[in-house]
């Protein structure tokens, strides 16, 4: 597509080309109109969330709805703080996402090293097993994982939120691909200098695989920060509850039909951090999400 507008090839000026120019101008206009409409459709709901969260209780139920809150009120945020221990919930989300991501990076990269940089009997068979588990839908895993968590006595603990997520085979798969692409020269030189496998893994392979590690970091962090189904069943207790679960509880409460300013304030607090990180690291987010799709 790009080619059409930039390359100039010898062309004969005919009526046809003139008509084509007019057509192109019309298409360009249409494209810009569509672009503006798209941006509005994508941003407006978030703006409406923010606007609603800054309105008072009676003001949100007014018709016609007004986009700019007047008077501006932070009532919903203070009320939200009374209803949910926001500091605690926010900390839980951050803690679970950070520890879970770090853990998944370590576990996956170690396994990926064994698969990509070492030769051992049974390696391919075990790797096939990893690939096979990627095809099982998560709902098949949820019930037995829940039973295992109960067996371990982990209900309503951070372990329950973090540990099962560490062993997602996709992380190993992604990093293995990246490790395979590195040349052998570096590590051979290091071996001759007497380095052991851990030194090579830690000092050579990991630093050379930063793009793949960044991709997995984003995927893992986003997955954990946004997770709902699993935390809903293993961590309902307020002490370990994460933002999405707290939000779900808030919106299902008895007064939920009218307290939309509170719900939107909670939604805003939960979505803003990740949107801000996204705006600064867009390229990485897009690439990560695409690579996650590729596992299918």
């Amino acid at each position: 597509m790009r080619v059409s507008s930039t390359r100039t090839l010898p062309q004969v000026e005919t009526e046809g080309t003139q008509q084509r120019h007019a057509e192109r101008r019309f298409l360009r206009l249409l494209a810009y109109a569509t672009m503006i409409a798209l941006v509005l459709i994508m941003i407006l709901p978030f703006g409406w969330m923010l606007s609603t969260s800054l309105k008072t209780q009676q003001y949100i139920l007014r018709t016609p709805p007004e986009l700019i809150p007047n008077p501006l009120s932070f009532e919903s945020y203070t009320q939200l703080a009374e209803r949910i221990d926001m500091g605690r919930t926010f900390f839980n989300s951050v803690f679970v996402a950070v520890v879970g991501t770090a853990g998944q990076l370590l576990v996956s990269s170690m396994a990926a090293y064994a698969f990509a940089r070492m030769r051992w009997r049974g390696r391919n068979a075990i790797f096939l097993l990893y690939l096979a588990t990627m095809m099982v839908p998560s709902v098949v895993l949820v019930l037995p994982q829940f039973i295992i968590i109960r067996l371990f006595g982990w209900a309503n603990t951070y372990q329950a939120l973090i540990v099962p997520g560490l062993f997602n085979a996709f992380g190993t798969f992604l990093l293995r691909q990246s490790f395979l692409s590195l040349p052998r020269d570096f590590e051979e030189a290091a071996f001759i200098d007497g380095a052991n496998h851990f030194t090579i893994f830690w000092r050579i392979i990991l630093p050379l695989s930063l793009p793949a590690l960044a991709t997995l970091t984003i995927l893992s962090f986003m997955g954990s920060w946004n997770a709902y189904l699993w935390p809903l069943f293993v961590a309902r207790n307020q002490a370990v509850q994460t933002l999405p679960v707290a939000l779900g509880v808030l919106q299902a409460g008895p007064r939920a039909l009218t307290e939309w300013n509170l719900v939107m304030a909670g939604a805003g607090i939960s979505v803003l951090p990740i949107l801000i990180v996204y705006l600064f690291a867009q390229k990485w987010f897009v690439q990560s999400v695409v690579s996650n799709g590729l596992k299918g």
Partner: protein
Amino acid sequence: MRVMVAGDTGWQKWKWVLFFIVPSLAGLLIFILIPILTSVWLSFQDWNLLSPPEFIGLANFQELVNDASFWQALQYTLGYILLYLPAAFVLGLGLALLLNQKLRGVVIVRTATFLPVVASWVVVSLIWKWIFNPQYGLINYGLSLLGISGPAWLFDANTALYALVITSVWKDLGYVAVLYLGGLQSISPIYYEASQIDGASAWQRLWFITLPLLTPTMFFIVIILLINSFQVFDQFWLMPMRDSAADRQVEAIVTAVVKNAFSYNRMGYASAMSMVLFALIFIVTFVQLRLQNRWVHYESE
């Protein structure tokens, strides 16, 4: 030729292999492989989490066949897919074609359409639940400006599905477009140059070059969207208004599994349901793979 290095023989080597693989493999065994086998086993049991599980053969599956609420969940899930998939597929393609143009401001569009992809399903569900509010929401206000009195959306079992689909398409549009973009950018410019010499119009180029060469990407996208949408949960769980007709009726397969497991404590029955879902996804993917050579063109052919 294998280079022999220190500590790379016999037991020394295995110690290192185990060091690297055991944390991952042990976890995979406990939290993935055993759960998969347990799920299969559970689907033949009757178990309420309190008394010991009891083997009941195929009774769970027999009950499923006659369970009207399961058929309803299946119906809603298929209805959702039937509406969501074509919309996401076509609109995503349109967006990708737009993003692939050399136009000023295209970056802003990409950034904006990807915002909902990054946001969580919970946040997106709640925002749109408020937008679809029949009395105070933006959608019905917009419709009222056009002189239309909007429906009850998430209160009504019939219209709730449309609200869910609209929300889902809004959230996934940027994702689908970015998947398409990868395919679009891998089409060799040679084809377009050749067609320009032949005097093909933009529409002809789209129809005879871009779309046929994009079919492998389309195939991939259809499979991904199908697998994902069979497992739809968050929006079905959160969006229907509490205690409304929609809340009582609108059900996806996964929400039905979760209700049976955690509200009715029917672990065996819920497992059987999840097995059926797994089988459905497997069959649909398999059929797609078999049908692919009817419409997918690979460049090397």
